């Protein structure tokens, strides 16, 4: 059967992997490629590499970083997000090694252009990254550049309804980095029941993950900061989510990729 | 008390048996091995090493217990450089107060010769208390430390999953256990049942130590050996020229630093034993007062057996030095144990074998037996 997914998020600022708290404060973590290699060995189901400062660097995906990751021989599916402003940006990111592409700023600027990415890549390769919060009982959609939140734009909902973008990453950006912070109202208030969702932001405890993954339209849960505080954090989470349709945790024996046969 | 007719070994060594012809087991062994085909034994060892497969990612083939002294330095080099076998060397390190700079130099020398060495160093204060309690109870402060020395190698073999231990000389040789001649002569697996030694913990627990302080003194259970399929081999069975002096020559040619204090202070004829600490001379002296033979006798016996010394010359040296132990070493020993020198001598006198020795008014100890003749 098709399993739900635990996604490991690597947030990158100035080429450095960071812990990000509330889309505002950052703490240095290390080299993105080393963290990716570690998540790969831990058996996470997908890796989301999100570069949060591409606009400051003049836009465009960080192709050099993608190639650096690929050279390490990652055997885990990779989603890239950050600075994808055009169809060619998306195609080049896939060429550089990403299986799928996350789109954030472009959805604010031109959702229909975002939909055009589906033609060369296929809708299954696209994820809409939506930083949301609850404002007066309704969902508010953040543009991280201006730091202004607005209601969900009709144009965005039309593109999603058209099926041009397969999954939506709901980011509880206010609770990012906050223990047990994820606000499940984001899922409850989401207007499109058949849209596959990924929950992210403040998910630190197994009970939370079980809560979101038990929802039929939630296909994956993403964890970033909290995977960096303990050895085998992915396996530990998966073991405590026994009973859910998740790929089993594995503790690799002598590192096969490196073992000198 | 009788002496071996050929060498100067008295029959007072615990559970040793002389032959009907009045010859000690060690002299019998020298005769017995004259006809041995040593090349056949070397082939056995070569096949044994060749039959072993390394686990992936594991590059230690066996473990050798070392002190950095003459025997272990020779064994390590022989095994590595002749058979291309990569041993993990395991050393039971003396605490800083007891260790000598010479011992540190020799261990450094062994490491610099290119070996992987694991040094296990038991807690110094517990070590010191156990030595004092051992001296007070058995007039032998080495009861605890011998157990630690003996336990370190199997403990580490079991924990590192290395299933071959190489020891030096088969101790049965000294006890007249003539099995040592046959194929089982190199099989040291009886060592797995040395848990009689582990009962050696009881007196330490009775002396007030907690179990958790005695972990370096715990000799593994036989079941643990079997679970790993641990094999124990005596290299002495293969090394036909194994001897105290010969091993010293091999090791001195590889950088060994030896004692320079002379036989008058230690009873040690050439100064090539007890290089890593200075309490052994005291223990050898006490052994002399208990059993009538000391460190000088051990040296002299080997020289006589190898035909390098007459029995008469041996007698002279034993009479002169077998009891030798410099007062300075005794003072330092007492200081380390925290006892007075007079308390030390009271304890030694109490343990002195009165059939072999008389103690005169001012505490001097005199032989009642005649060296080489007996009682």
């Amino acid at each position: 059967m098709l399993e739900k997914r635990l996604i490991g998020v690597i947030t990158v600022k100035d080429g450095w992997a960071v812990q990000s708290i509330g889309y505002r404060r950052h703490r240095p973590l290390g080299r993105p490629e080393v963290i990716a290699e570690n998540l790969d060995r831990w058996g996470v189901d997908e890796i989301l590499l999100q570069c949060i400062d591409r606009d400051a660097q003049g836009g465009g995906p960080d192709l050099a970083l993608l190639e650096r990751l690929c050279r390490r021989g990652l055997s885990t599916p990779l989603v890239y997000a950050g600075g994808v402003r055009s169809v060619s940006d998306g195609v080049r990111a896939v060429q550089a090694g990403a299986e799928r592409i996350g789109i954030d700023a472009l959805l604010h600027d031109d959702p229909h252009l975002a939909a055009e990415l589906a033609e060369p890549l296929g809708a299954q390769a696209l994820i809409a990254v939506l930083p949301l919060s609850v404002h007066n009982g309704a969902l508010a959609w953040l543009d991280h550049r201006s730091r202004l939140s607005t209601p969900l734009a009709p144009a965005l909902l039309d593109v999603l309804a058209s099926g041009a973008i397969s999954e939506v990453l709901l980011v509880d950006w206010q609770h990012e980095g906050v223990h047990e912070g994820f606000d499940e109202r984001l899922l409850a208030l989401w207007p499109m029941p058949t849209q596959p969702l990924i929950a992210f932001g403040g998910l630190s405890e197994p009970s939370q993950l079980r809560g979101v993954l038990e929802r039929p339209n939630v296909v994956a849960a993403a964890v970033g900061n909290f995977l960096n505080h303990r050895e085998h954090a992915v396996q530990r989470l998966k073991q405590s989510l026994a009973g859910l349709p998740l790929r089993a945790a594995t503790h690799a024996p002598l590192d096969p990729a490196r073992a000198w046969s | 008390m009788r002496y071996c007719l050929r060498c100067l070994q008295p029959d007072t060594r615990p559970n040793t048996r002389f032959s009907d012809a009045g010859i000690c087991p060690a002299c019998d062994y020298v005769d017995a091995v004259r006809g041995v085909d040593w090349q056949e034994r070397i082939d056995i060892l070569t096949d044994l090493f060749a039959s072993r497969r390394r686990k992936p990612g594991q590059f230690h083939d066996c473990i050798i217990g070392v002190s950095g002294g003459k025997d272990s330095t020779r064994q390590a080099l022989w095994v590595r450089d002749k058979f291309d076998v990569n041993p993990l060397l395991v050393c039971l390190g003396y605490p800083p107060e007891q260790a000598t700079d010479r011992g540190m130099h020799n261990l450094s020398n062994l490491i610099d010769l290119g070996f992987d060495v694991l040094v296990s160093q038991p807690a110094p204060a517990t070590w010191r208390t156990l030595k004092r309690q051992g001296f007070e109870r058995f007039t032998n402060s080495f009861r605890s430390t011998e157990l630690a020395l003996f336990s370190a190698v199997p403990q580490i073999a079991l924990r590192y999953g290395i299933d071959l231990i190489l020891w030096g000389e088969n101790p049965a040789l000294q006890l007249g256990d003539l099995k040592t001649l046959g194929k089982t002569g190199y099989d040291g697996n009886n060592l797995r049942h040395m848990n009689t030694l582990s009962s050696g913990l009881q007196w330490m627990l009775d002396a007030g130590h907690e179990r958790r302080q005695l972990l370096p003194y715990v000799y593994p259970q036989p079941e643990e050996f079997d679970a790993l399929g641990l094999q124990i081999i005596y290299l002495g069975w293969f090394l036909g020229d194994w001897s105290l002096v010969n091993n010293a020559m091999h090791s001195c040619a590889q950088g060994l630093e030896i004692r320079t204090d002379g036989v008058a202070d230690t009873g040690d004829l050439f100064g090539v034993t007890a290089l890593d600490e200075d309490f052994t001379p005291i223990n050898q002296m006490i052994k002399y007062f208990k059993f009538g033979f000391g460190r000088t006798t051990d040296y002299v016996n080997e020289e006589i057996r190898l035909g390098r010394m007459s029995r008469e010359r041996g007698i002279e040296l034993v009479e002169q030095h077998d009891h030798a132990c410099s007062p300075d070493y005794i003072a330092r020993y007492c200081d380390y144990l925290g006892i007075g020198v007079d308390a030390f001598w009271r304890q030694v006198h109490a343990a002195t074998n009165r059939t072999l020795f008389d103690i005169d008014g001012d505490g001097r100890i005199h032989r009642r037996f005649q060296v080489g003749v007996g009682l």
Partner: protein
Amino acid sequence: MAALMHCRRCLYTSAHPLGLMLDAEGICSGCRVHEEKDRLDWAERWQRLESLLAPYRSRSGETYDCIVPVSGAGDSHYIVHLVKQRLGLNPLLVTYNKYFNTSLGIRNLANLRIRFDCDLIQQNVNPHAVKKITRATLRDFGSDYWHCLAGQTVFPVQTAVRYRIPLILWGAHQGLEQVGMYSHEDEVEMTRRHRQDHDLMGREADDLPTMFDTLKESDIWQYRYPDDAALSAIGVRGVYLGNYVRWDPKAQHEQMIERCGYRTAAFARTFDTYDHVDCWNYMDLHDVLKLHKHGYSKVTDHACREIRHGRLTRAQGLALVRRHEQAAPQHLDKFCEWLGLDRSGLGFLLDRHRNPRWWREAETGRWAFAGASTTAGEAAGVTMPPASAVFEANDVLAHDGIDGYITIGKGHP
């Protein structure tokens, strides 16, 4: 290359090799996490540590309660004091032989063993492999210290697996203390990823041998991290005491000097006399390489720590950095003799690892320094630091007169 930004409170820059983030007020992530030291309730955090460690106390007395990595310097005395005397645990001490040992370091380690009466096991990797590795790491990424860092961060973990002792207790987390990598409240634990990423500059043992050099698996295998299956089977965990104790190395060292006989020595390249007295290289060749690669050296780490603890102003710290940073190394000959190098060859290797961001070769052989301290602001007319900021040296590196590397030493009296 992103523009170089300086923290307004300490002396670190955005080019710190562990990463450093500056917030809107220009204060770095390291200084922000340091503020927690005066905000958190450390009595409560000590209780958290006690309850966290409770299940690891061996009731049977058949095994040790934990493993504590130690050396002849660093925070070893204070850590063993915490573990044995305040926590009442029965630790197995483990140490990796760096071979660059000073006799003062040998003496301090012996003092540690005697004072706290602990069992210790020491790993000595055969020097043939250690030297082959050191030549490669010095050549390929300008590190004379990879083997030390790799050995001392893996031998405790290997021992945990072999001796089936799951708990390893470390001092403070370097990433947290220097650059605020984590909050104390994250209670971050030991991970293989952090070791590879930072302690080992991104290179694990298997990354060293290449097609074009002579390193073999038999040279590097002892530096491999245990595999996940073994770590998981034993339940190995590395806990940092610095997350539960208000970590202040200077105060801790002074407590250990006074009560436990820890001995210290002065250095040319820093004012701190407590750290690294066990190694001829750390404050000498290694520190010069750090300056070449990263444009700052250990004295800046010490200054930042003291500034954050309020014992130095930023200007005083900067003055101390400028006084020590260019002091000539004094023990290069020892390293050359140990590794069989010629001084000229070592010089060539050192120069190849000067980072052009901090060094310009105006004319051949003449290097102009443009490191962090040169653009960190003014330090002129600075008053000398108060008595509380003074570090005492009660001994010398050649403690018993031996002015060279000691492989194995007595260390007593």
